């Protein structure tokens, strides 16, 4: 019985959402607001149970009730720094929020900068150039050599398109036009994949309506 009610509610909400394709209406807005509300509520409750309680409340309680006091007290330091976020609510002490923000930004940047440079720049440049050493060693097939050269042309011409310190005329203009072609191919591929992704969602909902709700398949 519970499953049946669940299926009917899900079917009703699915139809409410798809009713937007005809035009905006109260049923669509009801389903949309319900979805947003439930998502936020679920997220908050889960964050409290999986984050706040085990990572802040339990260590805090253990630290203040433990006797004799031990190293557990050190856990009060990050908890206290976290609590400084709420200083924003008291106008006279609002400046205190700068400390947790500064710590977060410092840690975040310190972690991100070297790793992002390594993952997204050095490794990508390496990946673009390595096939040329393999060409030199004679280990690549004809199609792989063509792919490596095409990749290099694509990278250089696309980067040229985004290089605005030189006017895009003459050779630079020609190379940047080649870059536009590569960009367009990239956007076309992204559009095709997006269509596939969106249609997949529709297929799943139609399958649900025909199978679980109407029992037609």
């Amino acid at each position: 019985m519970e499953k049946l009610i669940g299926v009917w509610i899900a079917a009703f909400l699915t139809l409410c959402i798809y009713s937007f394709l005809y035009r905006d209406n109260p049923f669509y807005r009801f389903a949309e607001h319900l979805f947003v509300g439930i998502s936020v509520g679920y997220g908050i409750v889960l964050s409290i149970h999986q984050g706040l309680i085990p990572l802040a409340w339990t260590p805090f309680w253990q630290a203040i009730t433990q006797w004799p006091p031990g190293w557990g007290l050190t856990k009060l330091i990050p908890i206290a720094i976290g609590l400084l976020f709420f200083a924003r609510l008291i106008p006279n002490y609002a400046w205190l929020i700068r400390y947790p923000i500064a710590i977060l930004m410092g840690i975040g940047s310190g972690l991100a900068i070297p790793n992002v440079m390594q993952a997204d720049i050095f490794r990508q440049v390496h990946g673009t150039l390595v096939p040329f050493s393999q060409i030199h060693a004679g280990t690549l097939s004809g199609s792989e050599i063509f792919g490596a050269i095409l990749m290099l042309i694509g990278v250089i011409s696309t980067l040229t398109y985004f290089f605005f310190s030189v006017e895009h005329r003459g050779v630079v203009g020609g190379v940047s036009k080649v870059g536009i072609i590569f960009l367009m191919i990239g956007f076309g591929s992204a559009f095709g994949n997006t269509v596939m992704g969106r249609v997949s969602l529709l297929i799943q909902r139609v399958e649900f309506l025909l199978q679980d709700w109407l029992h037609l398949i």
Partner: protein
Amino acid sequence: MLKQIMQIDRRIIFILVALAVIIPTLLKVSFPITISEPTRKLYDYIEDLPSGSTVLIAFDYGPSSMAELQPMGTAFLRHCFQKKIRVIGMTLVTEGATLGYETMQEAAKTTGAIDGVDYVYLGFRPGTIQVMLGMGTTINNIFESDYKEKPLAEIPMMEGIKNYDQIDLILDLASSSTTEAWITYINTRYNQKIAAGVTGVIISQMYPYLQTEQLIGLMSGLLGAAEYETLIETPAKATKRMSVQSFVHLLVFGLVILGNVAFFIQKRENENV
């Protein structure tokens, strides 16, 4: 006629798309699936792992992406369980907690895998990057207990698994930027092997990582899931849905051509006037 095509009510296109989905779904049409290289690489990697190896699967998606990513998760888990590869499940996304649990339960039920022996589901912890990095030191510090609040120390499968050193592969099923975070922080820092299964919307961003081997394998949307189902010889939801998908692609293809032909003919007529 051309003017009518150019001014067609978009709701007629919606009806055509709906029919292109409903009719093949009712008729249960099926097309053969061709396997792409990135999906095969992931399959081959799992095939080459000895039994008793450990993989970690991150269910980093919500209900809006489960149509594409849940079949991937199910197919991958079936493969691991059939090969007696141990699986640790987790998520960095709040909505992923229940979805990941359900997917693991479903795959375990069909393969006879046992909770705590063949697989462990850790659930969700907030903090994304802090969680990823923390697990690199000690998993137990981040997840003291599993999803059902059983302490990790009491779970037989977790014996000897301390951090990424004991994990042979991380598979991220993602609908957002979590795969990039796994690559940036965990592949770069710990040299951990990463694979991904992502939605069609973000697949284009993943190919550069495949070429540099920062990703050892990649499943692309519903197609990737159907390919993996074909590889493990267990056609399921994704294979069925991919056949329906082909009809919609044909329709979209036709509409794009029709729209462009009408546009250029009308443009030429306007120039001649």
